[in-house]
């Protein structure tokens, strides 16, 4: 009897209906998670961006009004400008420094492995911890810079109190933390270049500088472009370090869009407006990524 039972169950399991449904059943848990943590918040954010909230509840449906308002909001425009400056400066320095370090680490000498390992440490430290460390360095009363300055007979060093210096301090932090990523990508790129053309160039009469300008750089352009795009997209969303280091201050000197968006949502409780802001930033970054990829394709095709 038991025997016939298992047989009939087996028969049912092999039925055509289950065969069709099985792949979907197996995909379902993953799909649900993706829907829950990715698609739903995105959808909810989009919906929220068309509404006005007061004390956490919807009071009006305003359509595209939030989006339109953004472009006449001087605080948003300023934060956008600060972000662009921050990204441009940081990524430029990271690319230059990272490339220089990668070129240097391409040579073989004693201790090179250790050096390569040390160089990528900043990247693996939690951003918040990095920011706390930098705050300890920059602090005007008991900070490391002040300590050094006083030891050399100077006075207190004001970094986070001055708009320009705080901004530069933030760029320095980002460069310190993310140059290693550039370094790593570019080193891998350099190591994958064929080396015969470089030997041919040396025999043909090129010195170090010409080899770099005529061979290394042109051959590295696609890799460099990818690294810069990656870092740019990432830098646009920088939040933790600024939040810990300056909270956007002094004034609006270091208020990146991410900080302004955070303030709008959680300080000023303008949830709908903040949602519109972040959707806009998302679109900007998306557009940036698309044009970068197209640029890459063109570089590749030529």
């Amino acid at each position, binding site marked *: 009897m038991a025997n016939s039972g298992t047989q009939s169950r087996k028969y049912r399991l092999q039925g055509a209906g289950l065969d069709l449904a099985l792949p979907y059943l197996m995909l379902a848990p993953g799909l649900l998670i993706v829907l829950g943590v990715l698609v739903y918040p995105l959808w909810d954010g989009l919906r929220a961006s068309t509404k006005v909230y007061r004390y956490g509840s919807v009071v009006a449906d305003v359509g595209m009004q939030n989006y339109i308002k953004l472009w006449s909001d001087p605080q948003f425009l300023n934060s956008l400008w600060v972000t662009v400056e921050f990204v441009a400066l940081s990524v430029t320095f990271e690319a230059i420094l990272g490339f220089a370090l990668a070129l240097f680490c391409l040579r073989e000498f004693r201790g090179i492995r250790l050096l390569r390992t040390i160089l990528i440490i900043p990247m693996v430290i939690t951003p918040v911890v990095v920011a706390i460390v930098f705050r300890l360095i920059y602090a005007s009363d008991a900070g490391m810079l002040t300590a050094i300055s006083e030891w050399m007979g100077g006075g207190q060093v004001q970094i986070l109190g001055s708009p320009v210096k705080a901004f530069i301090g933030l760029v320095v932090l980002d460069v310190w933390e993310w140059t290693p990523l550039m370094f790593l990508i570019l080193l891998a790129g350099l190591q994958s270049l064929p080396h015969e053309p470089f030997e041919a160039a040396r025999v*043909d009469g*090129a010195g170090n500088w010409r080899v770099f300008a005529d061979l290394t750089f042109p051959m590295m352009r696609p890799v460099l472009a990818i690294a810069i795009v990656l870092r740019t997209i990432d830098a646009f969303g920088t939040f933790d370090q600024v939040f810990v280091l300056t909270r956007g201050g002094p004034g609006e000197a270091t208020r990146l869009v991410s900080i302004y968006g955070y303030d709008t949502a959680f300080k000023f409780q303008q949830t709908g407006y903040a949602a519109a802001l972040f959707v806009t930033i998302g679109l900007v970054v998306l557009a940036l990524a698309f044009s970068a990829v197209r640029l890459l394709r063109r570089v590749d095709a030529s």
Partner: protein
Amino acid sequence: MSSVLYQSVVKNYGALNVLRSLDLAVPDHMFLALLGPSGCGKTTALRILAGLDMPSAGKLFIGERDVTRLQPRDRDIAMVFQSYALYPQMTVGENIGYPLWIRGMPDAERRAKIDEVAAVLEIGHLLDRRPRQLSGGQRQRVALARAIVRDPAAFLMDEPLSNLDARLRLTMRGEIKRLCQRLGATTLYVTHDQVEALTMADFVAVMHGGELQQMAPPADIYDRPANRFVATFVGNPPMNILPVTLAEQGIAIGGTPVAIPAARLAACRAAQVVEIGLRPEDMSVSVPGAPNALPGEIYVVEPMGNETLVNVRLGGGNVSVRAGRDFRGAVGANIAVTFDVSNACFFNSAGLTAVHRVNSDGE
């Protein structure tokens, strides 16, 4: 153009002796083939001359100049790499013109020169393409063009034909030879292919295990090999080597006595030879029992179209014999091989050629 001189050049990679005191003098205008099996140090020798690797000891001269410590770019040489090593981001024209551009040659003059070389190598229509849009043969031509666009002290080529298919290799072989003759360039041409070396070069330097075995014109390399290695490395199929014993009236191979002129026998005895070397084309098949014939049986028969290679198992070992295209024989059939002993050479126990073949002009 200049002469090139390797003076006791040694190269070690750690405990590995890649070159053991290489002495090589290449006179001005000579096309020298560096021939040897894979791994014998040919590329290393070339790279050291180019300045891409440093010798562990010894000196290098190009013309009168000691270039041992000079940077590659100060050595005034041009090199063709096995993998062509074209600049991937540059067009064919830019590739060819690069050695001139780097030396600051004015645009108009450079363009003219590029067009001239491109015409010689028949790649004028490719000048605007990039290397990856070219076939192997075309890349090869571009690499050659880039080398000859200048008038360097010497050309170095590292197995430039090894990445081409057999047919193209044949064509390019002739073309490179013509080109180098036309330019009268001092050329060091590295190859592991003995046919390339023999057909192209004025002189062949045979290397083995990081040592120079012999440097001589192709005909001498073939007819008067300095030692057992050269004798068996050059020639296809290789020279047959059989142990030989010396008797009162003559020599014996595998127990069969073979007549030999008295003077030659005396020379063999004086040098205490132990082996005889015979080229396949200097032996012929015969019927068992003929005088001076070595008896054996057919091991394998390989018809080549224009001739037939017969491998015969003798008392002392197997030999290859070139027979006519009409040769017929069954495997295992009894057969005999004959030869003229004046065409044979003899090796002593150190593997050196002690008695050479008698030249056709009767040396």
